[in-house]
């Protein structure tokens, strides 16, 4: 699976973007369009997941996976925080901010992973999209508690923080589309499938081209990254992701869904969490948390992590 996965257009376009940035080409995807594609991906993922749940109905597995996701998002920041403080030598604020990113999830990593698993005949269950939505925010709360945030000099004390945390646009769009998918079902979505289903993988290619550009440019301007933090940005996904797969298999999920839980646990946020952290923990360095999650962990997951979580799940759940 690993080699095949690496040669798929989605991954090759990511590498093309990274290469273009590495040679300092001026290639740029207009940000308005990149943003729109990221919204499209969330709508599409939500709708398709919801439609599948509408078909399968509520199941025991669904509740288990949801609970597991909630727990993971709340708790994964704790060991991560400890590693970042000790091995990473980060101060409390930065360690807490980074830990929140690793407890939360990356929508695009999930999307790419789902496609690769599907290709390999291990499609995750539709309800995993719900788990994805559930896992976005709890980690932020843990992160803020770890940082003992909310000191008086912060602009965050002027409000807006709760909104950024719970009503983040991407979370709402994902959950809302999931609900619409559940209401309308596969049949009701037929008329919009030429936009939200069929072109999904192609749109993902364009988005990953942009991610390659952004990730590589961040890596080249790695002012904030040290050898220690780079090492942790490789270690955390492996540890968290493997644990996610183990948990999924222990809970009796099918192989595809367990692999997806691993992908969620192993991925790190770079859209919802940074926006909250900029406001809540302004003293934390965005160069650090975006550098780790976007420039190191994201490419690692895309190229090796997803393949590893999939392989592990296939071994554990035959």
């Amino acid at each position, binding site marked *: 699976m690993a080699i095949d996965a690496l040669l798929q257009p989605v991954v090759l376009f990511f590498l093309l973007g990274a290469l273009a940035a590495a040679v300092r080409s001026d290639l740029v995807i207009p*940000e*308005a369009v*990149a*943003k729109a594609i*990221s919204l499209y991906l969330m709508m599409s993922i939500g709708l398709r997941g919801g439609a599948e749940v509408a078909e399968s109905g509520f199941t025991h597995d669904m509740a288990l996976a949801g609970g597991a996701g909630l727990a993971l998002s709340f708790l994964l920041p704790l060991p991560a925080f400890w590693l970042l403080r000790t091995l990473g030598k980060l101060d409390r604020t930065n360690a807490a901010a980074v830990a929140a990113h690793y407890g939360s999830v990356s929508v695009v990593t999930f999307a790419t992973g789902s496609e690769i698993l599907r290709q390999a005949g291990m499609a995750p269950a539709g309800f995993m999209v719900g788990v994805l939505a559930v896992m976005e925010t709890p980690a932020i709360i843990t992160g803020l508690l770890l940082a003992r945030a909310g000191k008086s*000099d*912060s*602009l*965050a004390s*002027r*409000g*807006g923080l709760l909104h*950024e945390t719970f009503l983040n646009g991407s979370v709402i769009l994902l959950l809302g589309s999931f609900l619409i998918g559940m209401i309308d079902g596969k049949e009701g979505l037929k008329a919009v499938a030429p936009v939200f289903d069929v072109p999904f993988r192609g749109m993902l290619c364009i988005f990953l081209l942009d991610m390659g550009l*952004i990730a590589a*440019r961040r890596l080249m*301007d790695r*002012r*904030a990254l040290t050898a220690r933090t780079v090492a942790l940005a490789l270690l955390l996904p492996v540890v968290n992701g493997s644990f996610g797969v183990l948990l999924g298999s222990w809970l009796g999920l099918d192989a595809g869904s367990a692999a997806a839980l691993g992908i969620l646990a192993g991925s790190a946020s*770079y*859209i*919802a969490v*940074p*926006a*909250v*952290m*900029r*406001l809540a923990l*302004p*003293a934390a*360095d*965005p*160069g650090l948390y*975006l550098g780790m999650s976007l420039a190191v962990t994201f490419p690692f997951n895309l190229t090796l992590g997803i393949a590893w979580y999939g392989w592990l799940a296939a071994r554990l759940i035959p």
Partner: protein
Amino acid sequence: MTTETTHRRRIEVLADEPLIPAIVRLAAEAGITYYTLLPTSGGAGAHGRWRDDQLSGATAKVMLLAITSPEHAAAFIDRLAPLLESHHLLLLSSDVEVVRGSKFD
């Protein structure tokens, strides 16, 4: 004929997008309720280079422009000054002339 103009202060604050609503509230506390936001596309400072980033918006910077009286300007600067370093803000203040000065208190 020459239209009469009045002296006012031109305040400019460059800040990351997620901070703008909080800064607008801070300005209101200092008596400044009218403002205009301008987009930016990149830059470099003590905390490194950046480019426009609409993806998370976390590090996209916005320029807030407010024309106001010297008193309100001073009150706003007093409130913002302690945050400049920790929040990576840029704060500029200069002279400007306006017509119908009473609109810009």
